[in-house]
């Protein structure tokens, strides 16, 4: 073969030339830059800021509201409880002349927030003179009512503890004996761990969405977009093999998927530090919770492998499209399919088994989830990487095979991947 300037290296140079050309064009395409670069970067800061600002806003609104509380059947001996409630900030005792049922209806309608009904104690409690049972009626569907319940419950608990303390002293129960009946709750998880657990549920899903979104436009642009612009045939006449063109296009799509995913990861790290911390208050714990540094390389590698896999499949699907719109509609089902497993994986007890480690996409979700939690099952990680590499290699081979087909690269094949495979199998069957 007498290729000018050609050598074994020449083939690699062609891939790089086409790859660089694709990137240059893509960076000048507004949609690709927005969906593959800008969105992954701003997604976490915007999302986290919106969520926590929203929560704080709603909490603030609820905190400012007066809790309208009605007491029914309060024993005279416990008059002090009513005083405590009246002294509590944000609680307003509403005089109620109507029936108890009417009060419950008023709570359901949002005109009242809590009904406190005092009743006789159950059979275990009658031994204690002046003992009572309290029933709280509230509306869980209304934030104001839930907030009111919390305020009333706090006052009731304090009053109960103080009253029980007095009673036991009157009965001669010593402090030591009394403490023996105490219940102490001890959460073995640190606040960091709790936050990491929550992040581990959210981040894999967002990572998949980001990678798929970042690869989506480049995949359509590299195939259907070229056809729509009539540049596809131009590319088919260059002195590079179909495999070279397919490889360069694949690398282009995979680059955007990977870069989108990694930018998303960086944005996440920065968001936790700089977006949540200034919000303070109830988010302080979240802001201080760091994903362990050792998790980042694992997540980054997992993201890259995920992008390589997603890019190959998206490229194959979009190769059958003749227009950008067709490309979008051909890829969308795969996009949804990608996100679906991450929904099922939200079960925190789902174990990262060897079987799951061999299933693409699922394995990456579990890998990222465990890495965030600071857990590393080395055999599963090894199987995940191995399985993902095998699937990526198979997907690239498949993409190259599909793109070598005349009907596909000329855009004359009617239908998508399904009809293509059906046609191929039937032609194989008839020829044999």
């Amino acid at each position: 073969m007498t290729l000018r300037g050609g050598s074994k290296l020449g083939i690699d140079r062609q891939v790089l030339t086409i790859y660089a050309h694709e990137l240059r064009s893509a960076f000048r395409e507004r949609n690709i830059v927005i969906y593959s670069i800008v969105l992954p970067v701003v997604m976490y800061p915007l999302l986290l800021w919106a969520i926590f600002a929203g929560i704080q806003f709603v909490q603030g609104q609820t905190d400012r509201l007066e809790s309208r509380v009605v007491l029914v059947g309060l024993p005279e001996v416990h008059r002090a409880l009513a005083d405590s409630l009246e002294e509590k900030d944000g609680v307003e005792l509403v005089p109620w002349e109507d029936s108890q049922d009417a009060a419950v209806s008023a709570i359901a309608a949002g005109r009242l927030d809590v009904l406190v009904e005092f009743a006789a104690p159950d059979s275990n409690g009658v031994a204690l003179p002046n003992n009572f049972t309290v029933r709280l009626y509230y509306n869980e569907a209304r934030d104001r009512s839930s907030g009111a319940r919390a305020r009333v419950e706090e006052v009731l608990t304090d009053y109960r503890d103080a009253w029980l303390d007095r009673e036991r002293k009157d009965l001669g129960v010593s402090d030591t004996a009394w403490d023996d009946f105490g219940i102490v709750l001890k959460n073995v998880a640190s606040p960091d761990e709790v936050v990491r657990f929550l992040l581990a549920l959210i981040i894999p899903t967002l990572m998949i969405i980001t990678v798929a979104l970042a690869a989506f436009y480049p995949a359509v642009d590299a195939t259907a977009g070229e056809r729509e612009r009539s540049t596809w045939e131009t590319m088919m006449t260059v002195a590079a093999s179909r495999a070279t063109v397919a490889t360069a296009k694949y690398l282009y799509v995979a680059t955007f998927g990977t870069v989108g995913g990694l930018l998303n990861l960086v944005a996440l790290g920065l968001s936790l530090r700089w977006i949540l911390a200034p919000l303070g208050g109830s988010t302080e714990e979240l802001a201080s919770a760091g994903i362990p540094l050792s998790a980042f390389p694992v997540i980054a590698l997992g993201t890259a492998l995920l992008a390589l896999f997603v890019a190959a499949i998206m490229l194959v699907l979009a190769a059958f499209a003749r227009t950008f719109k067709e490309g979008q509609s051909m890829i969308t089902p795969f996009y949804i399919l990608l996100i679906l497993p991450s929904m099922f994986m939200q079960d925190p007890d789902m174990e990262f088994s060897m079987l799951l480690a061999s299933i693409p996409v699922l394995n990456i979700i579990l890998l990222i989830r465990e890495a965030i939690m600071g857990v590393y099952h080395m055999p599963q990680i090894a199987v995940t990487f191995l399985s993902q590499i095998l699937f990526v290699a198979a997907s690239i081979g498949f993409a190259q095979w599909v793109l070598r087909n005349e009907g596909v690269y000329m855009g004359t094949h009617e239908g998508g991947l399904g009809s293509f495979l059906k046609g191929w199998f039937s032609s194989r069957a008839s020829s044999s």
Partner: protein
Amino acid sequence: MSAASVRIEGLTKVFYDDSRGEVRAVDDVHVECASGEILGLLGANGAGKTTTLRMLSTVLTPTGGCAWVMGHELREAPQDVRLSIGFYSASTALYPKITPRETLRFFARVNRYPPDRVEERVELLIDRFGLSEYADSRVEKLSSGMKQKVSIARTLAHDPPVLIFDEPTVALDVLNALELREIIGQLRDDGKAIIFSTHVMSEAEQLCDRIAIIHNGRILACDTLDGLRGVTGKHYLEEIFVHFARDSEA
């Protein structure tokens, strides 16, 4: 093997269509083109011109027959064939987001023009086609006339010995079409072997050294205009074309 730059022997392309069954778009085509020659492929729409040229440029794979470009057989060495040709048609558009300079650089590099001479080649083409003023503007911003020049320059980026023009003037106005024909004439003078397909009789008359009349996928005649006149006894190319077309259907 012939000394001709392009040699086509029995080239055939059969498509399978669900409604029409087997369609012979190109049927047993034989033709040659030498360096410094413009061979016109003259035929009505759907005659098989584009399919023939797409096979010659290795975009389509022939069903039968053989063809050699600069000694390279289509199916045996498709990359060498593509290296030897520049293909221009209405369906080979430019990348809108890059500049003419970047376009020429890309096509020179991807077609393996010696790397150390790429810049020199790009500047030469920019000068030759008067692109200096717009060389660094994005292609999408250029007028259709300028785009056409960039497109031809793109075809020549790697200095191929064989040029294929598939109905290049079909979407051009009179002045741009004239300019393009002049450029093609100059390229012949540079020693390029040029295959030029058209359905415009006057264009074939003015430009082509030899004309191959293609109808229903078959070459009915291939000769100089004078040769065709001698065989048919007709003067105008339109009459000659109709003569052969009716003869083949009789």
